[in-house]
Structures are given as C-alpha cells and as structure tokens.
C-alpha cells in the first residue's frame, strides 16, 4: 500500500489539487537541463512525499539530499534548493555556496521557494553576497491533501510563530490556500470564525477576493458552502489530553508523520531485528478506515471479532468441498495482510496503554479537565518533575493545568518553574518564556472561567459507551473536545446562541456572508438537514484549524459527519496535524 493516499472517494476533487502541484514541481525541475542535485529541506521533503513518489523524482535525473549545515557533496554542476521560505535555511544555502567558491567549484544554483519567494530570505542571500549567483523561482505548494477529507497547509510552526513571535506570515498562507481552493471549487459564501488568527484569516481572504476575484464564470457552482475557522489557541485543552482513538493513540505513542508511522520491523512480525519499517496509514486501507476513528478499546474488540471469524473460516477450510466455497475463502484472505498489520500495531499499542503510568496519567488528565481538585493536580505534576519524567510530558500537563485554571498563583508558578529549571537544566528557560508569552503557562491574574465553559458546553459526558457512542466525547473517553463542540454549534446554529460562551474564550469571533455569486441557490443558514441535498450531492463545510488539529478531533468530526441528520460532508484543513507533544516541542528552542 502506498503512502500517497488514493483520494478516490474524496467529497472534493482533492486529486486535481495534488496533480496540479505534481505537474508544477515536475515542470520546474524539468526546466533545468541535465543532471542535478535536489537539496530539499527535511520537513518539506515529507510534504513532497505526499505529492509525488520519490522514485518519480529520481526518474527526472535527480540526486536527492536533505538540507543541513553540512556542504552538499555531489558531482552535479547544478544544485537546486527546494526550501520553504524560512530565514534559517538561507544561512545554510549561503554557506554552501561560499564553501564551493572557496574551493573554486563552479556550479549553477537554483533556489526554489515554497510556496513563494520572500523578501526577507532574499535579503539574507543578498547580504551574504550570493544572491547574484542563484536563480530564484517559486513552487507554489500551499497545501497537501493528507487523506480524502484532510488537507494540511504544512505550517508546523504556525502556532508558535503567531503566539510567541507575532509572526503572522502563516495566516496569509492559510488565506491564500483557501483562496486557491476557491479558485477550484468556488467562493465559499458563509464564514464563521473564532479566535484572533481566524478572524484575521477571514479578513485577508476577503481582501484577496477583492484583489484577485474568483469570478462566477470560473466555477459552475460553488461546491463548498461554508467555512469554519478556529484558532488552536481557543482550545488548548484538547491537544494536551491523550487521544484515545486508534489513530490518535498511534500518533501519541509512535508519531504519525506524513501519513505513515515508523516502527521496528519486529513489531510488525518481521524476522529482521532492529530494522525500521514504514507503515502507511490512510483510508486506502479499508480496515484502517473502519477502525481509525474508534476508541481504542473498541478497536481491540473489533479486531478480535474479525479474527475470530477468520479463524473459524480457517478451520472450516478443511471441510470445504466446493470450488466456490474455496473462492470465497480466498477472497476473505485478501484482507489478511490488513488484519495482521493492525493486530500487530494494536498489540504494540497495548504495551503502552496497559502501563500503570499511562492509566494514572489518563486519570490525572480527567481530573485536570474537571478542574475541581487543584491540590491533587499540583502535587501530581510536582512529583512528575521529581521523577524527571520526560519534559514534554510534564509541560503538557502543566499547560493543561494552567489553561484550565487560567494560570497558577504566583508563588506556585515560580516554585514549579524553579523545580523545572533545576531538574531539566536552565536552557529550558526559553521554553518557559515562550509558553508564558503564548499564555499557555502563566501567572494567575483572574479567576478561571473554564468551569462555566465546561458546564455550558457539556464537555464532560458521564457514562460514555465507547462501543456505541452517542457523543463525540468517546474520542477522549468522557471528555468532549471543546473545539469540536464549538464547531458542532457553528454548523448547527451559528455563533449567536453561544455568544456568551465565546466571549469567555480567547479572541474575537465573526460570522459573515461573502458575495461572489449574485444569487446563491442555497438557503442562508446552515440549519436543518433538508437544504443540503439539492442535487443529490451533500453540501460541504470546510473546517480550518489554525495552529493544528489532533487525530482525535478529526475522528470526532468524522463522527459528526456520519451522524444521522447531518447534511454536510466535512473537509478538515489544518496548519499541521499535531498532538500535545509536537505542539509543546515547537515552543522549545534548541539551545546548548
């Protein structure tokens, strides 16, 4: 199975977007004749692997390298840098070129910026006196389809850049990407946004429509009806909790990157020890499609059930007489690789989930979210530090603690920070400072309103039956993600009924209608189930998370979309797929 998802069943024609990017990249590379060395920044190479197969790139006569501080070792006289427009990469490129010059190696250099050239980056090249030596071009890759219903803008630093550095470049990128989608699928008429970044994106999007309008002639009829934008900042609670869906758990423990997870081949039952292997995870895998969104407890049961049936079939085979019976059996065998793959994965996961420490952490998360026993939580975190559990785990709970309490009292704030610095090293003062700037770990200044939010939006759902869920809360075994509750509201009734609650959460909110189509055939509101199915096609709502979304949240949205009475297909777009750990890591700078 390929790591690039098939996208055949996507509600939007995401395949065309992928193919366009593919073509653009191939054409850009073909423009340079002869053999060449493609130096690609490592994160981008992950994104590109979802666009085009590495083998296809190699067919273009490329040597592939990852960009790093080390000089590029190649025989090629043409070096192509494919990089995102990040300032730090420019120094690498400049030093490579200067290194070549000092060794009197003559080469042609090309810098292809993704998604577009940037004044600041080129300024650095200029100041390093190499700008004249490079040919600058753009590869406008604004988004990558991750799966049939998920698009990523591949901006993993968006949240940190916005909250800590005030660098909102990613917001323009997001708006641009949505605008690109509009060029393909029509102007999205209804917009609902919550959070500073989201409202800004909606604003930039409107500007873009004025500057570079998508005219009604370009697209027959808009395919996407509504756009819901949500800042990660609005709900920092959810990503800090451990995801309990199958896919979410895999991500928590094994980290899914670019639609695949890397594990020891021994885990997957292969004979060679110590070798790593990549397991692709997307909906081209039917069994995974069926199980990815389920609570892990249920997945184990489902797998057991399926295995048992198969086992029965297997024993029956001895008594099978007719050819057609044999055929049926062979057909069933086709799903065998999928079965074994997931049984192996699931078993590997249980080695983590059955641990006492994991269970007690889950307990603690629940307690933190309920936010009713302050001291227990504080002591638990204190002890984590004393045990020197991994820093990201500590910070994750600490952020959860701080966010639900709207900060820590000064004395405890200073105490816990001192303990952290003493235990893990003073270099982490930068991370603490970043988290403080972002408001994720701070001194308490006013009383928390988390209780009100939690109660009004019914975030804690008692007695969730994970096997027959009746609410999105199943993804966190009892906690309904705040973000998804908000989106649920936005889809069903708009912001108005919950304005009071929205005011308690960070950032402004916005609800507008955009023109572009003089007479939209659709009814104004998002209410009701009847209006969406005008021509046998379900209407589409594009949900955009600025700052990242977790797999569990995606699962919750898929659950919503599959529920009866839902008139919409949901497409989820995000700056990056995140979890608590990856999110915390962006705030930690490498020092020392």
């Amino acid at each position, binding site marked *: 199975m390929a790591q690039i998802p098939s996208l055949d069943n996507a509600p939007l024609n995401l395949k065309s977007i992928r193919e366009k990017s593919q073509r653009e990249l191939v054409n850009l590379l073909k423009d340079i004749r002869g053999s060449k060395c493609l130096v690609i920044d490592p994160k981008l190479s992950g994104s590109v692997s979802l666009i085009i197969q590495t083998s296809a790139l190699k067919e273009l006569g490329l040597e592939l390298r990852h960009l790093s501080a080390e000089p590029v070792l190649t025989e090629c006289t043409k070096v192509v840098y494919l990089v995102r427009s990040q*300032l730090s990469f420019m120094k690498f490129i400049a030093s490579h070129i200067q290194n070549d010059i000092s060794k009197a190696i003559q080469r042609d250099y090309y810098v292809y910026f993704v998604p577009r050239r940037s004044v600041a980056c080129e300024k650095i090249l200029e100041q390093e006196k190499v700008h004249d030596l490079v040919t600058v071009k753009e590869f406008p890759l604004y988004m990558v389809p991750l799966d049939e219903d998920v698009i990523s803008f591949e901006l993993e630093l968006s949240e940190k850049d916005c909250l800590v550095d005030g660098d909102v470049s990613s917001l323009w990128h997001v*708006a641009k990407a949505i605008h690109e989608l509009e060029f393909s699928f029509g102007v999205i008429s209804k917009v609902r946004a919550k959070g500073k970044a989201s409202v800004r994106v909606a604003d930039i999007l409107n500007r873009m429509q004025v500057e570079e309008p998508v005219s009604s002639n370009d697209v027959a009829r808009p395919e996407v009806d509504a756009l819901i934008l949500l800042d990660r900042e609005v709900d920092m609670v959810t990503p800090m909790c451990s995801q309990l869906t199958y896919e979410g758990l895999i991500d928590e423990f094994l980290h899914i990157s670019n639609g695949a997870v890397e594990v020891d081949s021994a885990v997957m039952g292969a004979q060679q020890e110590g070798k790593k292997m990549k397991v692709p995870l997307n909906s081209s895998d039917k069994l995974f499609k069926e199980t990815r969104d389920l609570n892990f407890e249920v997945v184990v049961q489902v797998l057991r059930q399926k295995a048992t049936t198969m086992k029965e079939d297997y024993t029956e085979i001895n008594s099978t007489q007719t050819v057609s019976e044999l055929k049926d059996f062979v057909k069933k065998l086709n799903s065998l690789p999928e079965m074994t793959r997931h049984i192996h994965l699931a078993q590997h996961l249980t080695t983590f989930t059955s641990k006492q420490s994991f269970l007690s952490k889950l307990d603690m998360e629940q307690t933190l979210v309920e936010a009713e026993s302050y001291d227990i939580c504080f002591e638990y975190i204190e002890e984590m530090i004393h045990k020197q559990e991994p820093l990201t785990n500590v910070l994750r709970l600490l952020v959860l603690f701080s966010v639900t309490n709207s900060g820590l009292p000064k004395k405890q704030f200073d105490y816990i920070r001192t303990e952290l610095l003493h235990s893990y090293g003073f270099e982490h003062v930068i991370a603490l400072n970043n988290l403080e700037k972002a408001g994720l770990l701070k001194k308490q200044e006013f009383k928390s309103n988390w209780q009100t939010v939690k109660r009004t939006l019914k975030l804690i759902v008692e007695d969730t039956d994970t096997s027959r869920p009746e609410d999105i809360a199943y993804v966190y075994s009892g906690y309904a993600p705040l973000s998804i509750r908000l989106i649920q509201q936005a889809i069903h009734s708009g912001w108005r009924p919950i304005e009071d609650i929205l005011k308690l959460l960070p950032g402004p909110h916005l609800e507008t209608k955009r023109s572009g189509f003089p007479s939209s055939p659709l009814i104004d509101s998002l209410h009701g189930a009847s209006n969406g199915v005008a021509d046998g096609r379900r209407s589409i709502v594009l949900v955009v998370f600025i700052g990242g979304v977790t797999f569990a949240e995606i699962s919750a949205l898929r659950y919503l979309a599959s529920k009866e009475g839902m008139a919409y297909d949901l497409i989820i777009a995000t700056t990056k797929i995140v979890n608590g750990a990856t999110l915390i890591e962006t705030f930690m700078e490498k020092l020392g």
Partner: protein
Amino acid sequence: MANVSVAAEWQLLYNRYYRKPEIYQMRWKHVDLSRNKVACASFGGPIAVIRDDSKIVQLYAESALRKLRIFNSAGVLLSETIWKHPGGRLIGMSWSDDQTLICIVQDGTIYRYNIHAELMEPNVSMGKECFEQNVVECVFWGNGVVCLTEGGELFCISDFKTMKPYKLADVPGLIEDDMLQPTCLAVREPQYTMSGNVEVLVGVGEEIFVVDEDEAQSIRFDEPSVEDSEMQNDDYGNLIGAVQKMIVSPNGKFLTLFTHDSRVVVVGMESKKIAIDYSCESALPPQQMAWCGMDSVLLYWDEDLLMVGPLGDPVHYFYDEPVILIPECDGVRILSNTSLEFLQRVPDSTESIFKIGSTSPAALLYDALDHFDRRSAKADENLRLIRSSLSEAVESCIDAAGHEFNVTRQRALLRAASYGQAFSSNFQRDRVQETCRTLRVLNAVRDPDIGIPLSIQQYKLLTAMVLISRLINAHSHLLALRISEYLGMNKEVVIMHWACAKITASPSTPEAHLLEILLDKLQLCRGISYAAVATHADNCGRRKLAAMLVEHEPRSTKQVPLLLSIGEEDTALVKATESGDTDLVYLVIFHIWQKRPPLEFFAMIQGRVLARDLFVAYARCHKHEFLKDFFLSTGQIHEVAFLLWKESWEMGKNPMASKGSPLHGPRIKLIEKASNLFSQTKEHTFESKAAEEHAKLLRIQHELEVSTKQAIFVDSSINDTIRTCIVLRNNRAAAKVKSEFKVSDKRWYWLKAFALATIKDWDALEKFSKEKRPPTGFRPFVEACIDADEKAEALKYIPKLSDLVERGEAYARIGMAKEAADAAAQANDGGELLERFRKTFSQNAIFDTLKMPFQGVS
C-alpha cells in the same frame, strides 16, 4: 440608372478602372500648400504645415514668426506652436509610424513633436559631421531617416525609438569631388532588405549605388538580355543613364526611376527586369512621384498628374492648384488646398457591381434589391438568374460595401447583401455583421472632426488596437472608449491613458475635485491599475493626488511599492500590515531600514506591532547586535538579557569553550550580565534569579570538573549534577550542591533514591530510607527498585506504602497478582481497581491467541 453614375466617374488605365472620390472638403482657410512645407502621415494621419523657409513668399496679414500647425486629414486644426529653433533651415519633416513629427534642420538637430505640437525632449543631433557639414537632404521611412550632408556623407537613424545616428559607407566620388552631388536618393526599409539593415539608393552621375553601413555598391538594372545582343556596340550603361528621381515601391521590390531623358522606368530590385518604360513629354523631372498601391505610378508636375501603368496609355488628371501625394498601402491620397481625394484602383467587387453593363451575379443582386424596393416582379427574376451563385453575389456586395466611403452606398450594398442572404442557405451570416461593425468604426473615425479617412484595407493592416491608441494619442478618448466597448476590447488602455492625460491637462484643478473626476471614470473598468495612474500623477509632481489615488488600488502588491516610491512610508507600512502579506511588510521594513538612521527606524516600527515583530524575527536570525540596539533603545532590557543568555549557550557550543577551558570566564560574565539586566525590571526577578543560579551552577560544575578531573559536569542540570556526584559516591559534593541551591527534601529523596538504584547500592538505599521518615513516603524507593527491576529490593519497601491502592498497584507491577488483589480488596474503592487488574492481566493474552492461526498463512 444610379449605377451608371457611379462608374461614370471612373477612369480606365489599360484594363483597370481607377476612381478618385473626394473624401473631404478641407476645413482649413488660407492654407496654400505651395508656400509651405507639408508632412502628411499615412493611414489617414495628421498633416503638419509650416511656412517653407527655402522659398521667398509674400507675407499677408500674418506674423513673421513661423508657426508649425498640425491638422487632421480634414483640415481641422489640432494644434499649433511657434517655430523658433536655431540650427538653420528646416530640411526634412515627416511623421513616424507612432505619429511623432520628426523635423530635421540644417545643422542636423532633430526636433520631435507629438500630435499636440508639444516638443518632445530631448532634442537629438545627427552627429558632429552633420553639424559641421550641414544637412542638405533627408529621406524618411516609418521608423527612420537617412540624411545627406553637403560633404556627400550619409548618416542614418534606423530606429526612432533609440535615436542612435550612425554613418553609412561613403559613396565613391562624392567625398572627393565637391562639385559632384547626388541627383536623387531613395531608401529601402530594413524590413525589405536581405541584410535586415537599411539600404540607401544614391544616384550619382550615371550610376546608382546601394549603400549600407559597410559598403557602397554600384548596381545596374540594364544589363543586356540575349535579344539585345545586337546592340552590343552601344554602351549599355546609357540605356538608363543618369537618374533624376527615384522611389521604392511600398513592398520594397521595385524601383521607379525618372531618367535624364524623361522616361519613367520601373525595374525589379532583385530580378532587374524592366516592368514599365514610358517616355514622358516633360523634360523636367516631376515634383512628386508616388506609387498608387502596387499597380501604377503617379508623377506630378504643376497642374498635371500623370498615372502610368504597365500597359496602355497613361491617365492624366488636371489640377488648377498645387497638390500633395500621400501614398497609402492601397492607393494615394491627393491633398490640395481645398480638398482631399483618394485615388485607388476600383476593387473587383465594386467593379463587378457597378461596371456599366455588368451582368455579374452581384450586379444582378444589387439590381434585384432596386426592383424589390420598387415592388417590381423583376426582383424575383433576377434572383432566379443568379440562384447558383447567390452566396458569391452576397459576398461581393459585402466586400464592395466595405470599400465604399459613401455611407448611402454602403447601406445600399449591405441591404442588397442581406436581401440576397435571405435566399441563400449556406452563407456565413456573421459576415454582414462583421462588415457592419467595421464600417461603423470606419465611419466614426472618418467624421471630419476626427479626420482619419481610413480605407477598410488600411484599417485591417493598421489593426483596431493601433487605431485606438492613435485616437487616445490624439485625445479622442470618448470615441476610443466607445470603439473599444463596441468591439469588445479591453477598455483599460483607454481609460488609463485618459486618466493620465487628464492629470497632465489639469495642473490647477484642486486634488479632491480632480480625484473625483478620475475615480468616476476609473471605476468603469474593473481591475484597472490605480497604481499606474498614481505613478503618473507622481511624475507630474502631484504627489498628494498620487497618494489619494493609490489609496484606491486594491492590489496591495502594487500599492505598497508605489507608496514607498512616493515617500509615503507610514501609509505603506499601514497598508502592508492591513494586507496581511508579511512579505510586503518586510519590503517596507527593509526600505525604511535602509533609508533612515537606526534610531528613527526603531521609533517608526516600535509602535507597529507586526512590523516590530517581523523585524525582531528577522534580526534574531541575522542581526543580533542590531537587535540588541533596538531593544535597548526601546527600553526592552529583559529582551537584551535573554539575548545575552542565549549567546552564553552559543559560546558553550563552541568546542574551544568547553570543559574547563578559560573561556568559561566570559561565559559566566555574560550570564551574570543577563541576570543584572533582568533585575532592572520588577517583572523579571524570576529570570534574574535563575540566571544568577545558572552562573553559580556553572562555577560549581567547573570546580567539580577540576577536583574530579572528569569533564562530565558542565551544562548538566542541578539534578544531574547531584546525581553524578552520588554516582561518583561523592556524597559531600552532592550535599553541597543540594544546600547551595536549596533543593527541597521531596526532590532530594526522589533524586537520591533513583541515583542509588542506578549504581545498585542497595545498602545505601536502605540506610537512606531509614535516615528519617521520608517526606515523600516510601514511593521513591519502591519506584526506584521496580525501575531497576529488583523485585526483592522493592518488596522491602512495598509493605511500607501507606496508601492501599498504591500498594496494590505496586504488587501488580512486580507481577504478584495475589498480593495485589489482596491489597485491592482491602482498598475501599468499590472494586474498581480489582476490575482493572483483571483487564490488564488478560489483555495481552488476547493478541497472542489471535495471531496464532495466521502465522502459517501470512
């Protein structure tokens, strides 16, 4: 019959009919062509008139100052200006392809005027030699000119856009002999020559030279053919002999010569074949010669215009006033003091309809319409006659209508066409429409007030686009706009030009009012570039108006750079910020950064959050020292402190600085400086203290490395330092670090228990547990033992756990299910714990049983 009168005006030259309809009665008064130098632009362009200073003329009631006047083709004055240029006589004057009037005076200076008689700076000189020798003659073509000096040298400008003069090769004999002067000059345009460079034909004595930049070659057109061989004893050079006048045909393929013995000779330039050879009565060379299309040659002497064709007798036209011949691609316009005529060969379609006695299908169709209008049944009869060739007839009527200048006749022909079309099934119906559309445009520009008498052929050659740009150049913006609307072309060019012209033309209109006028029109065209209009306003010195206009530019990528170029840096920053495009903000930042002194720059961005943050992000990556200056100047001391602190790690990374080298001194100093800076603000006492501790830690670690002779301490955390000490069994040092940093008892117990477990010093661990009642309970001991996988040791401490649930869990972890269950049973939590144990113990077993059956298969 009406048709007869049409053909009655035609003249027959051999078998071809020519017609010469009058297009305009000239609107001008008191213009005598004979007193003036006149330059007429082709394609129905403007006419420039200036009193000829090479002739002695009597002044009537007029100023002695000469006036350059520009008229349209109908004699309507477009503009005028007084000519008072130095440099001697005006030698040549002609319109270029882009309708610039090029005037060359004796000393070789070129003055250029636009159609509004505005001098276009700068004036260009043909060069030093021209200045010294004087220009005596110029020959122009659409995009260039060749000048002949008194000294017999040739100079050329082959592109009016670049205006770069260069010298052509010398013609043999001309330079050496002062008395020898060329008898005539002609030019083959670059587009028609083999080399792609201009070629000048110079008649000197009995020879003709072809001159280009590199050489002058003599050519002969009269080499004897085989039949002429008996004339060999004659000097064949005398066949043509000295040439008095020559012109090149519009396609550059033929040359018309007027020889010393009054013959008009047309020869092919390449084939050298003589196409026409006609002896005229007049011995004097004609004043003007011109090609009429590609079919015949016109020669003009006073009051006599002679048209010579390849065969047959020439046609004479008589004029009682001076005329000027204006060659066009499909004929010649004849300008006199009172009228403008267009002499052309009668188009085939027109001929077939109007020729006397014509029975062509088109003529019958035209006739049929006439009958139809008079309700005569003969209409039907005519149609029957031409049934088989109806579409051909319709086509001819349409074509003839297109060639017609007379609107009534256009209409009649088109009606005939559409009448015929009604009976014809297989005819492309949009042909009528298309011709109507073209004719509307032509009739509109032929209006005397506009005065561009284009024929349909000229229009097609010129293209609508160029016509529109000529109209807007002449400031006929409204008509240009209407035409572009009517033809469905982009209006942007017209409106843009109008706006710019409007700005230039209204220097005294107040900004706000002018802006209103401009916006009113600019809004007509979506996506028009306000930035471009604003740039023009700025160039006209109306910076304020430019600023107001650029406000309306929706594309920030165009707006922001312009704002920067007109010095509106503040607005540029605001607009860039609003756009959300950080790249634009960077553009503005770098612009200001470069232009302003640092302090001013800092002050400017300090107030703008996004600009400041982006600058900081950039400077963090690339300009550390400058960033410090910024933070200092804006009072953000703690940021400077953070920068210094970060630098201390950079220093640590440097391999020279590692492990006990003297470089630790500066590193610690840096951290202490950071600590000091932090302490200057109340909000950062925590950081200040942390930095202080960090410096202290580094010192202690340094000492430890010296005393233990092991480079393993620097840059580890306090906990790790203590742990290392315990592992090295240096308890005193561990205790010292503990007390130095006031490590809490709780942390101390966890830390020490785990450290002892790593070195498996179980005795020490036990002793430690008995020192006093542990503030953390016995959990650290249990966990440390379980982590080290020492069940026996763990069992020493598990029973001491006070919490029953904890105790049960601990038992479970070391696999003692029964004890775990016992403890769980005692723990009063409703059996929840017990249930969980059951699950965990059973779960792992599930998978193993599941995998079993498939192992053979997969």
